[in-house]
């Protein structure tokens, strides 16, 4: 379980994620965006592995890359994107967006430079081998209500999505 | 004219062919087969056909129909104007519920150039008859699709091959030949060689494919 070459993998994965993220928001073609997003998600799953959260990494691969992105791809295939590709890509208030994002970025930088000191520099050792089991203990113990409510959320999602998508219901 | 009407042989120069190819369907050509002469009653001749059904029909339509038997097969020649009614009666009252075939024969010498033939069969009676009528070129017949759904493609084929139109057909267009084909091939005056040569000239860019 000893970590190896952490900086190398971190920068590799971080670069992959950022490039993927940039491609997501700049690609003309929605399928290319989705492809970039998948790459970002997979890289992020690996970052979770680095952070000793293998169960979340598995969830990320199965649910995000293998589930939600399939959903996205299906929708892209259902709606005709060719026309959207020929049109203007950015909306009329794009400059507002850029300004807002820049402001937010400035805020982040300010917070991080100020608050660097409050992050403790300790690396706690978690027995990675027990991760799933510990997640289970927490999930079905302390977070029991959240877990049950999640099923309600899913129920609502099914009903909402089916009502929305199906015309004759 | 006679030279043009002849189907061009291998040696005929293209210049001579041209006028014929423009209207191959309209040229009263002499086909390779001998002209159909209704002459020479050699062997068995059609004999009149009599049956209760015919008697009934005769009562209603009189001389409009001419029932005959030839080689044990019954058929009736029906006046063009009586066709819709007769078919209706045959279908609805006489139980001829199965339209086996619709076809035509071309006799270019006659004034009424076409024989149109309905082959009908009755499941309850196990009986097969033919209804025949004579029609002119360009004259249209009523479509029998309301009586027999099977008539759809059969009528289309007759139209495709002979150019006989059927009124009330929902989709009367060529069926076996491509859209935009010239002429009606099963007419006796159809110049297949002209057609072929023209196709070769247009599509292959050579004088003659023969």
């Amino acid at each position: 379980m000893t970590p190896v070459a952490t900086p190398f993998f971190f920068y590799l994965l971080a670069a992959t994620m950022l490039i993927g993220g940039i491609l997501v928001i700049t690609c003309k073609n929605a399928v290319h965006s989705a492809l970039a997003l998948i790459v970002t998600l997979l890289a992020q799953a690996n970052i979770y592995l680095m952070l000793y959260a293998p169960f979340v990494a598995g969830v990320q691969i199965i649910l995000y890359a293998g589930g939600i992105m399939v959903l996205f791809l299906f929708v892209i295939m259902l709606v005709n994107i060719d026309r959207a590709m020929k049109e203007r890509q950015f909306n009329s208030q794009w400059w507002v967006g850029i300004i807002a994002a820049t402001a937010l970025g400035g805020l982040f930088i300010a917070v991080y430079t100020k608050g660097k000191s409050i992050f403790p520099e300790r690396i706690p050792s978690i027995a990675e081998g027990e991760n799933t089991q510990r997640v289970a203990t927490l999930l079905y113990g302390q977070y029991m209500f959240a877990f049950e409510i999640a099923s309600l959320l899913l129920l609502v999602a099914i009903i909402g999505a089916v009502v929305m998508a199906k015309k004759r219901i | 004219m006679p030279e043009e009407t002849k189907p061009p042989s291998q040696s005929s120069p293209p210049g001579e062919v041209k006028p014929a190819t423009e209207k191959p369907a309209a040229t009263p050509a002499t086909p390779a087969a001998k002209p159909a002469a209704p002459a020479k009653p050699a062997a068995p001749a059609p004999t009149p056909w009599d049956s209760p059904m015919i008697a009934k029909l005769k009562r209603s339509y009189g001389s409009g129909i001419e029932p005959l038997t030839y080689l044990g097969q019954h058929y009736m020649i029906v006046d063009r104007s009586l066709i819709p009614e007769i078919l209706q009666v045959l279908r609805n009252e006489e139980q001829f519920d199965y339209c086996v075939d619709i076809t035509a024969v071309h006799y270019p010498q006659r004034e009424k150039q076409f024989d149109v033939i309905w082959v009908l069969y009755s499941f309850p009676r196990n009986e097969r008859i033919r209804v025949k009528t004579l029609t002119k070129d360009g004259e249209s017949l009523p479509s029998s699709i309301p009586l027999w759904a099977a008539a759809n493609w059969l009528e289309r084929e007759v139209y495709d091959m002979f150019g006989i139109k059927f009124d009330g057909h929902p989709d009367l267009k060529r069926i076996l030949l491509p859209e935009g084909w010239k002429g009606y091939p099963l007419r006796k005056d159809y110049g297949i060689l002209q057609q072929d040569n023209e196709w070769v000239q247009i599509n292959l860019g050579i004088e003659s494919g023969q």
Partner: protein
Amino acid sequence: MHDLIQYVQSYLDPNVKVTPGAAGNMFWAFVYIMLVFLGLSVAVIAMNWLERKILAHMQVRLGPMRVGPHGLLQPIADALKLLLKEDLIPAGADSFVFWFAPFIVVLAAFCVFVVVPFGPQHAITDMNIGILFMLGVSSLSVLGVVMAGWASNSHYPLIGALRSSAQMVSYEIAMGLAVISAILMTSLNATGTGTLSMIGIVEAQKAQGEWFIFKFFPLGLIAFFIFAVAMVAETNRAPFDLAEAESELTAGFHTEYSGFRWSLFFLGEYTAMIAVSSIAVTLWLGGWLRPFPNLLNSPTWDTLFSYVPGATFLFLAAICFYNVARMPKHPYFRIQTMGLGAFGAALALIGLILFIPVVSVRVQDIFWFTAKVAGFQYLYIWYRGTFPRYRFDQLMHLGWKVLLPLGLGVLILTAGVGLLQIKS
């Protein structure tokens, strides 16, 4: 250099009972990766040949006979043909996605083998979320299929892609439920903690003294059955081969693919078949465990079973030699006869090597695992020879309305029976 030697030695020590990945032994991990690649390529080539031969014999014909003795070299000839074939990207296709899609499929199919346990220490690596990783990675091939179909810019591939991806995702649920009921069985031990690690699952079966297919009879069997149906559907094989239903959509999502790029899909399909079979073997059929590890557990049986791998290869060699004897004696067939003889000799040699105790002890795990997977491959071929094809709505019906409730029911029942067992 010294480090390297140490690396090599560290793993040859017979007391090592850990996978190279878990031991952090990158040298041996690399060797294993290469072995897995080699083994998979051989397996796919063999599958290709065997599928044709077995199918042919089921269908009263001979199958490939020309290239090499009994068509043994046919897969290689095919690979060469595909290599030399023109590779077209249709006009209007999205060339990048078109180029990239087969990679996803191959990658998804291959990556599963990172955690496949061929033996207690014969896996590239062991991870805590092994089965989750396998399911997740194998589900990524859906993306490749959808993208291949979309990128082709043609009706048939797109419909084929939508169909096969809908099919794959539908059966993934039933598959997951069946897997969970097997995972649940692993937790029925002294510590009360199960595992998702592939090696751990097999160890659990060993510890509990029975393969999970027989546990809580018939619940384990039903769960296995659900998985076995779902895995055929997941890999788009007959009778669920709608994606490439030749008579309906010509070739499904890879209609527009040709040449070597097409062969990547082919590779992906066969690898995926082996991969899902490996999951089934690990979860229900005791992975690398030899048959009846608990019923016939005296040392005599151990030695007897350790002869089986060698004997199998000798038997195959005997078949080869028998066919050498049956070959026509005409000089025209001389090279073929010699080739078949050489093939038989190679098999016999492998068989003899497998009789050496040192080797056989290390290798018999791999043999049993492979033999079980091979059994599944035979089933795949058999299905193809026997069954007509499902229609799409029937397939969806089966997935959503039969297997899903069945899987849920089996899961709840297994849990209930497990609880009763804990209480008593």
